[in-house]
């Protein structure tokens, strides 16, 4: 009898636990989940609502029967007052549970970022499914357009592209790997500025857009009306949201058909708002978006982003093109690599912080130079001087832009300044957040940056 009772209790306990844990198992079962690979967040004009776009992995592309051709991602949009609300509506709409653990990119539109995004970033950072290494992008177009144009036939799996593109910062310096966790920390810190990757549409993006929205039946813009505002006025809300929907579409169209300048500027100093790429992918990720507090305040060009990356010690090697010191019509390509750690010292003895930065760079000239008259060492000296002058000018321009124009310490110089203080209250009294605006910068380079070059003399030509 005792044995029967014992087994009865054991079996009952197992049944109770199976029942209790089945709901979690069921909801997190791989078959019952839809994996979001990117999120796009826009603010609707003249409304408090957000337009939250979900880009899903097309699981059909992973199956054995799938063709080798690229499959378009599935993009759905929800209009809701907050992101959690949008997630709930989306869960109801798709009938499966959203899973954000494979979300690689979170894109905010520039217009929305200008209004402050701390609440949204805070929610996303504390969401258990979203990883702190997810990249943050601010787009100069609508976030939904950016996501639609991020596809490319070069990449069969879009998640892989989202995974890999920030790593190009290591060998170009034209973008940076900005994980959500670090972005959130910087937003919270009053002394620090924050940056995100800057996403733009490339030339002919408008024609590319026709493909994902019209030709692919899987892609759909679904705008679900927000019922949280006033449920008793559901019909009005529906009408309003339909209008909002239409206005969003119009707005999208305007953004998509934006004019892209044909007379492109020098690629190193191009304005990030004017795309310089043209190709199969409709979106590019070059430059950075700068934040002060939690608001977007401006952008950085590619060369400014390179300066940022160099100061952050995030770039392994990069190529610069400078005007030849021998002939202004000629360009010299210089590959800078083997970068040693830079030294930064901050003088806080005066009311204005003085930031002294010393770089230790090594470079080589990629081109074969035509030079008949100047001896080798003189050529080297002139090139070194030209490179230093160019870099000093670019660095100073970048640093004064971050301090004077943006008042945003995106390179976290304040952390170096903190070394000079004994306690946090001493540092707070110094009021770095306001003094950074008046900071002075001194840039220094090692004596000989360029170590090798090849000179072609007249006699070498056949």
């Amino acid at each position, binding site marked *: 009898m005792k044995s029967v009772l014992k087994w009865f209790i054991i079996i009952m306990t197992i049944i109770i636990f199976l029942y*209790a844990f089945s709901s979690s198992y069921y909801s997190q079962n791989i078959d019952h989940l839809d994996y979001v690979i990117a999120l796009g967040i826009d603010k609707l004009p003249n409304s408090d609502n957000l337009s939250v776009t979900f880009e899903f992995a097309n699981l059909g592309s992973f199956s054995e029967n799938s063709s080798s051709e690229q499959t378009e991602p599935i993009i759905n949009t929800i209009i809701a007052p907050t992101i959690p609300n949008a997630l709930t509506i989306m869960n109801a709409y798709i009938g499966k549970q959203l899973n954000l653990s494979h979300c690689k990119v979170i894109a905010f539109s520039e217009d929305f970022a200008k209004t402050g995004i701390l609440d949204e970033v805070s929610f996303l950072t*504390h969401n*258990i499914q979203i990883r702190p290494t997810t990249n943050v992008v601010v787009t100069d177009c609508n976030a939904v357009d950016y996501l639609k144009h991020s596809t490319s036939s070069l990449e069969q799996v879009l998640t892989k592209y989202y*995974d890999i593109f920030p790593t190009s910062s290591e060998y170009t310096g034209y973008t940076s790997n900005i*994980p959500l*966790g670090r972005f959130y920390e910087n937003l919270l810190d009053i002394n620090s500025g924050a940056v995100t990757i800057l996403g733009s549409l490339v030339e002919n993006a408008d024609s590319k857009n026709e493909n994902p929205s019209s030709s692919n039946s899987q892609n759909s813009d679904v705008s679900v009306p927000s019922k949280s505002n006033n449920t008793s006025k559901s019909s009005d809300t529906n009408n309003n949201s339909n209008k909002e929907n239409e206005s969003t579409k119009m707005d999208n169209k305007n953004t998509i058909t934006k004019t892209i300048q044909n007379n492109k500027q020098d690629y190193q100093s191009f304005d990030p708002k004017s795309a310089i790429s043209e190709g199969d992918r409709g979106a590019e990720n070059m430059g950075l978006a700068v934040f002060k507090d939690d608001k977007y305040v401006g952008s950085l060009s590619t060369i400014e982003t390179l300066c940022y990356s160099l100061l952050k010690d995030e770039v392994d090697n990069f190529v610069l093109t400078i005007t030849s010191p021998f002939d202004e019509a000629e360009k010299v390509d210089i590959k800078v690599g083997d970068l040693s750690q830079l030294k930064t010292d901050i003088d806080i003895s005066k009311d204005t912080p003085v930031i002294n930065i010393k770089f230790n760079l090594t470079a080589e000239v990629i081109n074969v130079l035509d030079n008949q008259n100047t001896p080798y060492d003189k050529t080297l000296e002139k090139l070194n001087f030209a490179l230093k002058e160019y870099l000093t000018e670019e660095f100073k321009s970048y640093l004064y832009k971050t301090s004077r124009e943006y008042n945003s310490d995106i390179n976290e110089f304040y952390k170096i300044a*903190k070394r000079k203080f*004994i*306690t946090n*209250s001493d540092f707070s009294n110094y009021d770095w957040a306001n003094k950074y605006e008046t900071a002075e910068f001194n840039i220094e380079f090692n004596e000989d940056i360029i170590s090798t070059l090849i000179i072609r003399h007249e006699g070498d030509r056949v």
Partner: protein
Amino acid sequence: MERKLGNFEVINSLIMMSIADIVLTSAGILIKEVNSASLLTSCLISILGIIITFIMCKLSKNFIGKDILNISEYLGGKFLKTIVGFGFVIYFILILALFLRQTSDAMQLIYYPLTHIIFIIALLSIATGIIASFGNNSIFKATSLIVPFLYTAIFLIFIGNTKNFNINNMFPIFGNGFNHSFIKGLTNIFTFSGLSYLFFFPSKLKKPEEITKIGLIFSILNGVYLIFCVADILFLFSDAMNHSQLPPLYISVRYIEFGTFFQRMDAAFIFLCVLGLISALNINLYFILEILKNITNLSDSKPLIFPCLLTSFGIALGLKQDSTLDFLENSLSKILFIVFTFVVPLIIFIGAIIKKKFKYTQ
């Protein structure tokens, strides 16, 4: 007759108790309290912990092979032994309940969002009860197997996060001020929570005369673990992530990516932590049962497993509000740790030594 424990098993068990506490709460609490000075404070805490352990072990050497209950019986008879025993039982049950609650909360948040917390706590309690019924052999052997992995994991986490570190987060060096960092900050010595169990081991050791050696190795390893944990969190995100419901060390693991192939280290870390936390729950329960057995003169402690687990289950379930949990973690457990790890043992040791010397002179 229970099997006597080797030095390796004892050291691992002591470290397990500290690791469970550091991973779940104390590393985060330390950084929240002393901010940028936390690395310096944890170094000082480690030195202090080693010194205190050494002194306590030296004092206990006067009573080789006797645990704190035997010594208190020697000092004040059965009455004192019962009071001290019950005091420790209450303290350990509270720790057991806290561990149960914190582990269940983390598991619910990460893996079982739709399962009611009551079932997760119950599952952990039942698992602890089943293991406890097998006796000390399974508990200490399993702990010895898990701890080396958990210990290695912290070094791997530290190395994996190196590229994300900002060493400047440790400045200003004195954080919120000298007093705040070093006087108030030293109360965080409760990161050496394994020390509370050290005084119950002498009667269970194969070589009780090596208690000083065990204590020193434990305190050094505990100190190193604490420093690496604090450094990892501090260099990675200072206190920005400390407001999260998740343990900061777990969040730091989520930052680790070894290329595109090894990206989800947190799953392996959680697996190790759950195994480790179940071991910690078992060690705790084992000592509760041993103390109760000792003070009630029961021949078998198995009938006590169910009531003890039910008590801690009830307390864990009652810790619904974050403010209550915060009070227990930040205030009460700190005070109880200092009382039951330093004050009570020190008074008993000194009293017993005086009594012993007095007897000899008579």
